[in-house]
């Protein structure tokens, strides 16, 4: 591409997608210590459900909340499914999430078949004219919604009782229990939040078509974004996502790298993940890893 402007803006749009996906991962991890490998798969199920509902001529603005209700139910199911494992090492619970990933994929294929499902956009078509190209309303919408969620969730964590409870549980579960906080309820709330966020990401990102794999694999980019945000702070996660977005879009626009454009997101994410994890010497990240 000739000018850098459109590339940067597209990077911003892509980055918002990564950030949006990462939000749910971070919240669940903070509250429960479980890294949700199945996050993308949960989003995929919501997107498929949304697609089916709209096919039945249900208006999109009604179908989306209905699909998200199912996401919430899924979150509750996962929270209770994990209860027998609550004292198990963190790794075992992560393996459980991997198994859930496989289950959700098989379930989606069994119910909806394998062809990509058409997912209508929640936003009108057309877009905003910026520096010589058009940025779709849906992309603008994602950026705005992500920012809104970051702000709203940060406020939630700071000012509401539930939010503070989640923060308490995430820093020290036993102390929180001693304080009278119902850890089980907090865990369920966190999972519902994470699952609904996955659903929102799934529905917004999957236009025009959702398939069973790309969302599931998006979770790796989400991990990278979350790690950039040090897995604790939502605004930092947002910034992390944007950075990742730019790091993947800008190189892809260079002439030399264009044939390899699709290779860049996973490779960059991997390098970031390993780099960040390896370079952090003694922060809470590695300290938590010791429990594995």
């Amino acid at each position: 591409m000739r000018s850098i402007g459109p590339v940067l803006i597209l990077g911003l749009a892509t980055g918002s997608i990564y950030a949006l996906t990462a939000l749910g991962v971070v919240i669940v991890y903070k509250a429960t210590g479980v890294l949700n490998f199945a996050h993308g798969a949960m989003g995929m199920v919501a997107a498929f459900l949304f697609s089916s509902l709209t096919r039945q001529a249900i208006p999109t603005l009604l179908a989306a909340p209905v699909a998200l209700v199912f996401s919430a139910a899924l979150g509750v199911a996962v929270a209770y499914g994990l209860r027998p494992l609550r004292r198990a090492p963190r790794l075992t619970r992560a393996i459980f999430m991997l198994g859930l990933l496989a289950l959700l994929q098989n379930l989606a294929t069994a119910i909806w078949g394998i062809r990509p499902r058409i997912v209508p956009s929640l936003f009108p078509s057309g877009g905003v004219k910026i520096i010589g190209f058009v940025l779709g309303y849906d992309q603008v919408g994602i950026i705005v919604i992500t920012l809104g969620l970051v702000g709203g969730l940060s406020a939630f964590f700071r000012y509401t009782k539930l939010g503070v409870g989640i923060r308490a549980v995430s820093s020290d579960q036993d102390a929180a229990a001693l304080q009278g906080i119902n850890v089980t309820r907090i865990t369920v709330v966190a999972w519902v939040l994470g699952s609904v966020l996955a659903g929102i990401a799934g529905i917004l990102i999957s236009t025009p078509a959702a398939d069973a794999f790309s969302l599931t694999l998006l979770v790796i980019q989400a991990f990278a974004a979350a790690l950039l945000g040090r897995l604790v702070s939502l605004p930092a996660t947002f910034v992390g996502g944007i950075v990742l977005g730019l790091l993947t879009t800008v190189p892809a626009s260079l002439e030399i790298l264009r044939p390899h454009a699709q290779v860049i997101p996973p490779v960059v994410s991997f390098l970031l993940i390993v780099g960040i994890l390896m370079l952090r010497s003694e922060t809470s990240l590695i300290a938590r890893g010791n429990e594995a």
Partner: protein
Amino acid sequence: MSRRSPRLSFRDKVFFGALAFSLLVNVWAVDSLRTEVAALRQAQRSGSVGQVPIGGDDLQPLESTGADPAAGPTSPGATGVRAADVPAATDRTGVSKGTIKIGAVITQSGLADQTPILRGLSAWIQHVNAAGGVNGRKIELIVEDDGTDTSRGSAALRKLVENDKIFALVSECAPLTDAQNVEYLRKKGVPVIGSCVLGGEQFFKNPYQFPLRLTMGSMGRLVGKYVAQDMAAVKPAVIQLDHELLIEMGDGVVAQWKKMGVKDYTVETAPVVNPNFTPTVIRMRGEGVDNVSLLLDTASTIRFLQAASQQGWNPKLVGVVGYDEEVIRYGGAQVEGMMVPFYSQPVRGSYPIMKQFREDMQRYYPGEQRLELANNGYHPAWVFTDVLAKLGDNVTRRRLIDAMDGLTNYDDHVIPPYTLRPGNHETVRACKWAVIKDARAQVVSTDWYYLER
């Protein structure tokens, strides 16, 4: 970390030596793989497996196979294809007094769904059996599902061949499994009549396999010719999905453009996962591209159409999945005027066999919507029973293969009349064109559009 001794122990030296050696092995393996795949591609690009004996064909012959395609199954090719055991002249597997057993492995679950093919196949077989069978023998059909798992598919294939002892595979369609088992089927001498649209070059190299269709490269050439000649494109572009078959097709498009002297063309490869076409659209528009051929799947085609309309760009379009109702419904205004190639008679047209096809589908599988796909199962079965009938009472595998290899100007009423010979199993290079108008694909070709005429 423990303190390391300053000198390397013998074990360490052995280890590092082995490591260095294995690195070399890896580099050599990757390079060697690349060379072999490139040779294969080159052979595919420079033409097809054989040459169609229609006048004026000037495609270059195969370069690196080192084999004369017309020599039949005894000469090895570039891929190390060796002479296989020819099915014995008395091989009557699957044939009994009252029945002939045929089979197919068709992907019905897992990551792909070719079930309409099964329905088309089954509908025709039921039709035939209801009319008394072929020369007094009923056709028994056994179908297995591979669940898109090659292990399962390979096991299912072996079951059909060795356990159920089928006579032939008809309308076989399990893409991953089929690709893996070409060798096996060839060694067993099992005739295969018809195979998926999703099959590659190797199926044409199996002397006992009759895909009854064009190679992807030829399909591409037809698109290339139409774009350059009939659509008078000045600066055409082709966007191919990063999938080997569509790249094969794209290579055909480009080969045809080169042959016709088109100099100013663009080729773009789109990733399979979530391609973002906005940069592509912006770039192509900036370069003055006026015609885009979309060799993509449904979802990516829709993505491109949406990106193009969002940026306000309206080039002329050719879309290989343009007939898909999802493309028509969600593609937006851009879809109107898009050209779509059909490599067989349009299934919803008025051609007699298509009417019969629709009747049979209505009778046996009334709910089936994906008729194009179902026809891919019906068509080979119909050819099979037609050729089978000509064998009379003496039905052997060898006679079936020889009969197929002897078809001359054979009109199966679905694709243009073709001539098959040993080593040349590609049918005639022709298609029909339709335009998307008023949310429907409307056929504009009155007759077949040939590559070589």
